[in-house]
């Protein structure tokens, strides 16, 4: 079965490879007539002059440009100039085209609130031709598709390390099955014996034997004792807690694939006691532009737009009146009688986010990685060496600095500077 699976996978793989190769070949043939030197020059010019507002295939501040030449040609001749020539006029200085009242240019101007830059003196006519060549055939010499990021990093769907209830049920089902089969074979043996005319003394069933009963009771006592202690210890802890969030936001995509820093969104981790859940305007810094994700398409990003009142069609906050907050589910929760300060750990302690939160950059759906129990806190405070030497924060700890110099102590842990005293966290 596994072999079959492999064979299927490799078949699929080879099929995709073939398809890709054919597609690439097809593209090469189709664009054989494009001058690569001109195309590359156009691409470079496009990137430095136009790409801030335009994209060949996507709407940004300005419209998507692929097909622009044909659209302007469709605008028709006017005052002895063809549509393409008017497009050149527009790119040089769009005011000229509008002032001359070329109908397509006038319509273009009124369709967008943002005004285009003026490129007269920056771009020559040949430059504009090269840019248009690139814009119309932006994928002609595309980078290999292998550069595209895999959607999501490793999947970390199963929450903590506790096996699911289904596993227990399956194991029990197997045990029951084995018991039934033993029963059936015994019964068959008995029938065979009866047929042969052998009369055997009635056997004592195995579960009626005292040894077995004692063993079962012992196992049950041990298990129940363990379960009670385990349950008691975990009461009040939420390790592995992995609730469904209102938006299927993937940290694996944002922090893993795209390598966006944790503090881009959670900037109060270094500023204050609480690390923040980012407000929606932080999402909109990028999602004003990016409206489609690799996994759920526009579905999940549309939820941000609905919550913040953004209208993707007009690219304005037109629906602000119907905006309402996203009710994220808080995962990490310390009891109220514990003081914890993020900025202290991030700034003075220089602790990495992952030390406590685990490999968030691989989590599609975030779960609580650490137990957040007192033992866990204390353990880390005992073992973690404080970056003491060149850390301004600890410059006033004169005695410890002296001890370090005299070599009476060889390292400073959080415990050395009072990190295990009750009042540090409980007051």
């Amino acid at each position, binding site marked *: 079965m596994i072999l079959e699976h492999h064979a299927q996978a490799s078949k699929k793989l080879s099929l995709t490879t073939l398809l890709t190769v054919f597609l690439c070949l097809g593209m090469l043939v189709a664009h054989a007539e494009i001058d690569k030197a001109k195309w590359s020059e156009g691409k470079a010019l496009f990137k430095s002059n136009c790409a801030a507002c335009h994209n060949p295939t996507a709407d940004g501040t300005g419209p998507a440009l692929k097909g622009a030449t044909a659209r302007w040609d469709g605008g028709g001749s006017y005052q002895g100039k063809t549509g393409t020539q008017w497009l050149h006029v527009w790119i040089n200085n769009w005011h000229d085209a509008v002032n001359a009242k070329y109908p397509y240019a006038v319509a273009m101007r009124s369709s967008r609130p943002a005004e285009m830059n003026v490129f007269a003196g920056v771009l020559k006519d040949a430059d504009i031709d090269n840019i248009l060549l690139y814009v119309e055939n932006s994928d002609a010499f595309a980078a290999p598709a292998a550069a595209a990021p895999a959607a999501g990093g490793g999947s970390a769907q199963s*929450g903590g390390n506790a096996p699911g209830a289904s596993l227990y049920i399956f194991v029990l089902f197997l045990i029951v099955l084995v018991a039934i089969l033993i029963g059936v074979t015994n019964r068959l043996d008995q029938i065979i014996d009866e047929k042969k005319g052998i009369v055997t003394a009635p056997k004592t069933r195995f579960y009626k034997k005292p040894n077995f009963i004692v063993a079962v009771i012992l196992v049950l006592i041990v298990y129940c004792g363990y379960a009670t202690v385990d349950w008691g210890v975990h009461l009040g802890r939420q390790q592995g807690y992995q609730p469904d969030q209102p938006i299927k936001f993937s940290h694996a995509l944002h922090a893993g694939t795209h390598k966006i820093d944790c503090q881009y969104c959670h900037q109060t981790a270094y500023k204050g006691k609480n690390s923040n859940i980012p*407000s929606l305007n932080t999402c909109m810094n990028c999602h004003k532009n990016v409206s489609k994700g690799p996994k759920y398409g526009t579905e999940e990003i549309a939820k941000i737009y609905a919550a913040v009142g953004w209208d993707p069609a007009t690219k304005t906050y037109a629906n602000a009146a119907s905006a309402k907050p996203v009710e994220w589910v808080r995962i990490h929760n310390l009891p109220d009688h514990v003081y914890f300060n993020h900025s202290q750990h991030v700034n003075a302690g220089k602790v990495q986010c992952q030390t406590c939160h685990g490999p968030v950059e691989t989590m599609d759906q975030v779960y609580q990685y650490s137990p957040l129990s007192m033992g866990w806190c204390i353990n880390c405070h005992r073992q973690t060496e404080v970056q003491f030497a060149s850390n301004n924060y600890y410059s006033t700890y004169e005695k410890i600095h002296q001890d370090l110099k005299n070599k009476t102590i060889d390292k400073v842990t959080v415990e050395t500077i009072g990190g295990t005293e009750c009042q540090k966290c409980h007051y």
Partner: protein
Amino acid sequence: MRNQIIKLIPVAAIALILASCGRDAKTPGRIYMPDMTYSNSYKAYVASDVPTPEGNLMSARYPAAKTIPYGYIPNDSAVRSNPAYLMSYMAKNHYTHSAEKWQEEFDRAGKEIKDPLAYTDDNKSEGARLYNINCTPCHGTKGDGAGQLVELPGGGDGPFTSRPPDYKTRLPLENDGNIFYVVSYGKNMMGGYGFQLSVKERWQVIHYIKSIAGINGDDNGAGATASAATDKGKKDDKKK
């Protein structure tokens, strides 16, 4: 046979009990003392019991009317040139951000706002740290607009379809005040960072991006480094 099935019932019951012991990852689980874990006072990011005027349960509320922010200095023309005033909540209180008034406010900021922060190595290195967190996804580590969201490491197009201009060509065209306004409120496809970065942090970032654009730190305006040609470009840009 029937006998055997009846005998299996206790086994099945034990199985059911054991199976129900597994923890459900979708719920936070039970706690010893709810009143100690979930206190009566509101904690950050926990829903409130009292709805806001807008009708939602956010515990983050607007401060009471006429609350003065920490470090606030009144908007008086006599203190406008005071560095402390320039470092205060000025931008939040005295400039507005709406799509219609963007250009007007951008120009005003270019004239009025002067860089209040001293050019020191500490400010620049803090600016570099903040730049690498907040700006590199789009602007790239070199400030050329090749951030990892714009251009994938292999050279392909990233998900972000607008490519920021190169600082080397763009920044010399602007006054410090203009740059500050854009960092605070955004421009075109760029979002505003007034929420993420304090006024001081924004100036630190500006110090750093000016250094990677090769602009002399103490240059407080566009004039000094901009040649005649770029001056023309600047005028054109102002028309925009």
